[in-house]
């Protein structure tokens, strides 16, 4: 058996937690540390911080937030946005990150994946893929937080990043992100069945049934939740007790532990 991870994804701009739709139209929600601390107390399995504007400015401004967060939160923290070199990754690990997520720089320079994996291990490298559906049924990878197309096919890219040494894939559907209309199940299934590294599905969760479909039907190894948690439409306990009721193994939170 394996336990499906429930991950809180926090997109951050400057000092603020933000939330958009299709990764755009960003709205300020508050202090990311207050949110992540709350999720940790509730029993979330991991935290993902994404600097939403980092690659535009060529730097990640999350170092301070990560440093403060990791003082009080003792679960894995993944940090993404604007990481362009092994040194950038090292700076985030030194601040308390456990994994780094790469997108824009990895597309521009795939060798960076291998370099970071060699230095810090494959498990430390998460490749973030922002996917947008095309008319022919395939998906194209986007960079700069869903702003720029690359011409790169998502499924081929997923296979390639695994070969280059990525330990995990964070797969975001730009079409579904922020819509609460459910995950792009075809996308999740296509990537998850193809690669032999874990896939975190992100973008679109609007109900508990969406969670079930994403894991049971589309074979996601982990699910990233943003909107439903940030707007307090669901608690971590809601998601985990639902998962257990559907025989999806998860790490129980303490109130649910038998």
């Amino acid at each position: 058996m394996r336990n499906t991870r429930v991950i809180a994804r926090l997109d951050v701009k400057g000092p603020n937690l933000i939330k958009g739709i299709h990764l755009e139209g960003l709205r300020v929600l508050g202090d990311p540390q207050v949110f992540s601390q709350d999720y940790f107390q509730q029993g979330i399995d991991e935290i993902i911080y994404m600097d939403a504007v980092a690659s535009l400015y060529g730097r990640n401004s999350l170092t301070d937030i990560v440093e403060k967060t990791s003082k009080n939160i003792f679960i894995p923290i993944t940090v993404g946005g604007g990481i362009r070199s092994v040194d950038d990754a090292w700076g985030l690990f030194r601040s308390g990150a456990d994994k780094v997520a790469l997108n824009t720089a990895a597309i521009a320079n795939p060798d960076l994946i291998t370099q970071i994996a060699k230095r810090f291990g494959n498990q430390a490298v998460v490749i973030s893929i922002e996917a947008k559906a095309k008319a022919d049924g395939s998906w194209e990878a986007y960079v700069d937080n869903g702003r720029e197309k690359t011409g790169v096919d998502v499924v081929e890219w997923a296979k390639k990043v695994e070969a280059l040494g990525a330990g995990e894939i964070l797969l975001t559907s730009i079409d579904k992100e922020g819509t609460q209309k459910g995950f792009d199940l075809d996308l999740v299934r296509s990537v998850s069945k193809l690669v032999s590294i874990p896939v975190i599905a992100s973008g679109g969760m609007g109900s508990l049934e969406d969670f079930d479909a994403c894991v049971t039907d589309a074979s996601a190894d982990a699910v990233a939740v943003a909107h439903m948690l940030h707007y307090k439409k669901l608690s971590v306990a809601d998601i985990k007790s639902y998962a257990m009721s559907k025989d999806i193994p998860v790490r129980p939170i303490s109130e649910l532990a038998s």
Partner: protein
Amino acid sequence: MPSKVTIIDYHCGNLKSVEQAIAHIGAEVEMTSDPEVILAAEKLILPGVGAFPVGMENIKSLNLFDAIITKVNAGTPILGICLGMQLLLEHSDEHGGADGLGLIKGQVKKIVSTNPSLKLPHIGWCKLEVVKENDALLSQADYFYFVHTYMALPENESAVLAKGQYEDVEFCAAVSQDNIWGMQFHPENSADAGLAILKAFAELPLKS
């Protein structure tokens, strides 16, 4: 009263997470790459993520190998975490293979499943089966956070402290032998259950 915990910095991985977790439980903590500091330590943590051969190479090039062996043989408690646990064993097959510290007899090998579509690394929370009774650090069958592609195969069953299960694969999740402990999971990333282990380690009585 917790004693001072010395984290061995051999330039592999998320040391900051380990340091902050130790500080959080109220123990004094230092990080060092200096063999003299290691020789003066009360308790040692060998953390680490990454590849086994690189880890061993760094330990040797920083002149830490002899210092670690000397201290452990003198009875200083040591806790290996993840790669740090694997390094306690004699040899790993990872990336062409390399010899480890040899403090615990056995090998480190890649996780093998009958299921060809098994995802690796094994990433996630796993409930342990604690097989040894009355261990000073690990007594409860709780959930812990794992990230690994390789697993330890101790030669003596008596060194196995706990087991975990990932799909059809049963693996050694923790080892213990005298003053030596190794955890395949990350206590620093395993919420309260993990902090309890670090606290118990920091509070182990010192050898007089």
